[in-house]
């Protein structure tokens, strides 16, 4: 077992599936679908294996694999995971198979291309979470962009070209800055050590940073570049406007992955790279970033209230919820950071579920406008019950996962400065306002004329649709009652805070 290159396997199993599908004839749609699902399930099983074999108490990275890639610049193919990345990998593989299963019905054209894109997307996402070489990380990061560009641009809604172009250009601006920062970091390391060996190696760079060897001015510039890339991805206020457009136009599964995993890439980048490598800069900019996070939390919620479109509403709510993640990172307390990571996972499960549920209605009505809905509780009782459950989870009902994450961020922030918690606690009311008002208009009241007109098309959720949602709901309850299942993996929090704190003076 120890010799099994499990990380490499998890990362490239989906790629193998994509290659396999590429040689299948296009008209074998069902075979293609099943191959894609089987592949993603295989990756999922492997990731579960990773989850159970990961040793909790141990510090540092585990399951490391390394091979020289471009030796003249010290670039390696280096993988490894700590508790944080294990959790993110499992989140990715879980949401991937669910998304692929949820695409069986809605995606009817170019199934082959769609499934290939999806599996390549999975490769990129997993790669980002397991890469321990900055150059490799960058490659995976950009790899995510291409299939998502296609998924929105080909299988998306009416306004898809505008949305996908905006998404890609916006993200590309950030990632180009990130490339500059990565190169500059490597150059600095090379200049200090006189050799390229380890110049892109995350562990070496982190040790270098922990010794306080990156100059302050350099840190400020490199951090800003990296931060911008990640902040766009999260997305933080005011870089968020690509998100509502992308979500609205993306097909259901695209939205699920976008909200469930892609936004987490940004948060992961901040925790893994931006703060530990440039701790001085992180502390210098913490104040403004906290303020931006608070704005995102409240502003995202306020704007959500008046959204006329179901997906757009959930998109803006993501801005608000992800604000907790960035807030939790930059107050630099263990409690808040654990809360932030819990919130990353929980938001992936909850918002992923919400987008799936909107997809279920969209399949039947081909509409997402709240004004046209009404009375769905009478016509689709099962759907309404499940939708209500995910809405309550999103509101932060205790006993469900969302509560634990948000509350830990609140407590950690309160300990740092009470004013932070006081100024953002209003979101407790705002979140309930926009979600319950939406739920009331969609599910309660008399059945709307628009829905009545659909007649028999308005069937309740199917078994497959329920199957995509059941695991998410189960995990939301499980993590709400036993958050220790996640918290046990979060010993990297200590490493992070040590890294963030150690070099502040240096």
């Amino acid at each position, binding site marked *: 077992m120890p010799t099994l290159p499990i990380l490499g396997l998890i990362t490239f199993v989906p790629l193998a599936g994509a290659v396999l599908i590429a040689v299948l004839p296009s008209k074998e749609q069902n075979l293609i679908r099943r191959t894609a699902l089987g592949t993603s399930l295989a990756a999922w099983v492997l990731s579960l294996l990773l989850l159970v074999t990961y040793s909790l108490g141990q510090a540092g990275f585990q399951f490391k694999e390394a091979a020289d890639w471009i030796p003249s610049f010290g670039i390696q193919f280096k993988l490894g995971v700590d508790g944080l990345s294990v959790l993110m990998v499992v989140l990715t593989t879980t949401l991937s198979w669910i998304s692929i299963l949820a695409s069986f019905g809605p995606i009817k054209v170019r199934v082959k291309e769609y499934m290939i894109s999806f599996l390549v997307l999975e490769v990129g996402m997993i790669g980002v979470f397991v890469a321990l070489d900055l150059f490799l990380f960058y490659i995976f990061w950009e790899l995510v962009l291409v299939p998502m560009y296609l998924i929105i641009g080909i299988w998306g809604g009416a306004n898809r070209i505008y949305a996908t172009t*905006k998404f890609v250009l916006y993200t590309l601006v950030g990632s180009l800055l990130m490339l500059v920062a990565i190169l500059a970091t490597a150059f600095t390391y090379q200049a200090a050590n006189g050799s390229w060996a380890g110049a892109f190696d995350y562990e070496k760079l982190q040790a270098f940073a922990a010794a306080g060897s990156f100059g302050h001015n350099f840190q400020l*510039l490199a951090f800003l570049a990296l931060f911008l890339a990640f902040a766009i991805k999260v997305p933080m206020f005011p870089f968020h406007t690509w998100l509502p457009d992308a979500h609205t136009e993306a097909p259901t599964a695209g939205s699920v992955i976008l909200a469930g995993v892609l936004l987490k890439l940004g948060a992961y980048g901040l925790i893994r790279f931006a703060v530990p490598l440039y701790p001085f800069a992180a502390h210098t900019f913490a104040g403004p970033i906290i303020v931006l996070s608070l704005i995102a939390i409240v502003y995202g919620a306020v704007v959500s209230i008046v959204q006329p479109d179901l997906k757009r509403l959930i998109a803006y709510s993501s801005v608000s919820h992800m604000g907790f993640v960035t807030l939790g990172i930059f107050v630099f307390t263990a409690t808040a950071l654990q809360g932030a990571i819990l919130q990353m996972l929980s938001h992936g499960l909850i918002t992923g579920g919400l987008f799936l549920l909107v997809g279920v209605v969209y399949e039947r009505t081909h509409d997402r406008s709240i004004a046209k809905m009404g009375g769905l509780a009478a016509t689709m009782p099962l759907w309404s019950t499940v939708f209500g459950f995910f809405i309550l989870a999103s509101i932060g*009902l205790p006993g469900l996962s969302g509560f634990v994450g948000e509350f830990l961020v609140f*407590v950690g922030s309160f300990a740092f400065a009470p004013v932070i918690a006081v100024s953002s606690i209003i979101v*407790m009311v705002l979140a309930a*306002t926009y979600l319950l008002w939406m739920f009331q208009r969609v599910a309660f009241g008399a059945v709307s004329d628009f829905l009545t007109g659909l007649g028999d098309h308005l069937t309740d959720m199917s078994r497959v649709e329920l199957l995509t949602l059941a695991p998410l709901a189960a995990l939301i309850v499980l993590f709400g009652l036993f958050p220790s299942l996640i918290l046990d993996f979060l010993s990297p929090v200590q490493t992070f805070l040590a890294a963030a704190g150690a070099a502040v003076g240096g």
Partner: protein
Amino acid sequence: MNALLPLIPLLPLGGFLLTALLGRRYPDDAHRIAVWAVVASWLVASLVALMTLVHIAPFGPQGSGITLWSWIPAIGFRADMGLFADPLTACLLIVVTTIGMLVHVYSIGYMAHDPGRWRFFAYLNLFMFSMLLLVLADNFLLVFAGWELVGLCSYLLIGFWYPRRSAAVAAKKAFLVNRVGDMGFALGIMAIWTQLGTLNMQSVFAKFGAVPHEWQIAIAVLLLCGAVGKSAQFPLHVWLPDAMEGPTPVSALIHAATMVNAGVYLVARCNPIFGTASEVMVVVAAIGIFTAIMAASIAFTQTDIKRVLAYSTLSQLGYMFAALGVGAWTAAIFHLMSHGFFKGLLFLDSGSVIHSVGGEQDMRKMGGLARKIPTTYATMLIGSIAIAGVPPLAGFFSKDEILGGAFKNGFLWVWAIGFVVAGMTAFYMFRLMGMTFWGPSHVDPEVEHHIHESPRSMTGPLIVLAVPAVLLGLAVGFPPETGLLHQWLAPVFEHTIAAGGHAEAAYTFFGIDGALAIATTALVAIAIVLAWRLFGVEIPVLGLRSQPRPDQVRALSARRAMALLYRGSSNKWWFDDINNKVFVEWGGKLAAAAFWFDRTVIDGTVNGIGTVTAGAGMALRRVQTGRVQNYALGIALGLIVMAAGYLVISVTVR
């Protein structure tokens, strides 16, 4: 034996899960599971309460608990799944499970013809679980969890008839207004953790003296916010009257007898916290007594039978807050219990009335029902006498202790207002009785000959609830201030009372206490006589009979001095209109403005940059002239810029 504690909430939780899973398949029978689950929970709860009150180990005056698992064991934070029962818990357990069980039984009949009956019972079971969790929790975060869950159940049950828009709106309103208070509660929990490093209530109380005084005040104020929301005190009282959109058993259980008491329970439970922050205690008393008189004044003019009872509930909860604020802790819990029983009774009675007249809730379309639904009438009369404070029924003793406590602890203004409210209570309750049961019938002739007494599953609980409404005071509250309840609760409150300094003077019947009691009783008697002169009375056994005088009522309310009061009362003092204007209208405009800002300014900038870039690309296309000289010039300029840039960077970055 401590393992009994988790059984109490888990039985109804199991009932909820089974009913919810099986309900769709067995819609006619699933509710039985829920009923039996609550009966079982009541048995266990009664056993635990009894053991606690008569001191059978491990339960007893100091309380006993059990930790199930470590709920949130984070680095730098900790909260457990732990339950705890002491005499205060025992009192609440008795009220919650007894009334809960009776309401379940009652609902079998009340909801018999509703196709969603199983769903109703599933929600009721979920509520029982949540409420019992709230009462039994041993730490603040778990109380908060129960707190939010009862709020959810309240939301689900108010909106039970969801096709009705008003029900859906009222449900949402209840949840949102409660959340306003919960913000304070949540911040209070954060403050407690930050100051003390624990959320376990007993540990917090033990260490609370060491907290800096400004934080003591802050924590008390923040917890009070939560209590004010849940117990519907001014200014967060607006959700409770609208909550009457829910089925009547819900109003009885959640919005009269149990959930709305949670705020009173929280403040009483945190008596060591509030005791050290005496500045806040005055606020508690002021909020309570203001709510009491404000709500009572609204109850005067409401015509919907349930709304009168809802405002009455607000008013009585105000009494309890006033009692807490003046330091009459036991009196507050006493009133909580007696009010739970008689108000639960009154609401179930009103449900029986509504049931008998085909769903009508407007008292102007009732009248003369006394002989047609005798059991309902008799039990409702008992409930009304009890709430009015006629000796020796339950309400007399508990209200008397509150007023006496206010007077003797030096809160004369609280006593004076409370005294007036006692008279008002008697008046509006007998106005309700008169309009509903006495005088000529105004029932729709179509409905008139269908009027029938409710089935036994409904009248049974009424009769059972009438017993404590009559006897509770004599049983646990007599002799006043030294009765059983005082002995039971002494271990919970004695510390705070001793620390507070005002050891209350002993009860003297031939002294101040007797004088106060007689004064109150006299006022109540006058109010009752006044009400039945105006609204008519007909008590055959006693040979009492009077005709209603709608002309006098109209003349009275039309008087110049009364007109404004009358308008204010019937418009609920315009609180809903103000809230609607400020939060719904202005808040909506603010949100719309934020969205405009997002699209025009933020996204406009992004798109602007995009357009400028695209435009620049079009413009720069002209640079591709194809002439070598131009390119050479470009290369030269580029080199210079790069060299300069390198110089600048190597100077600024080391």
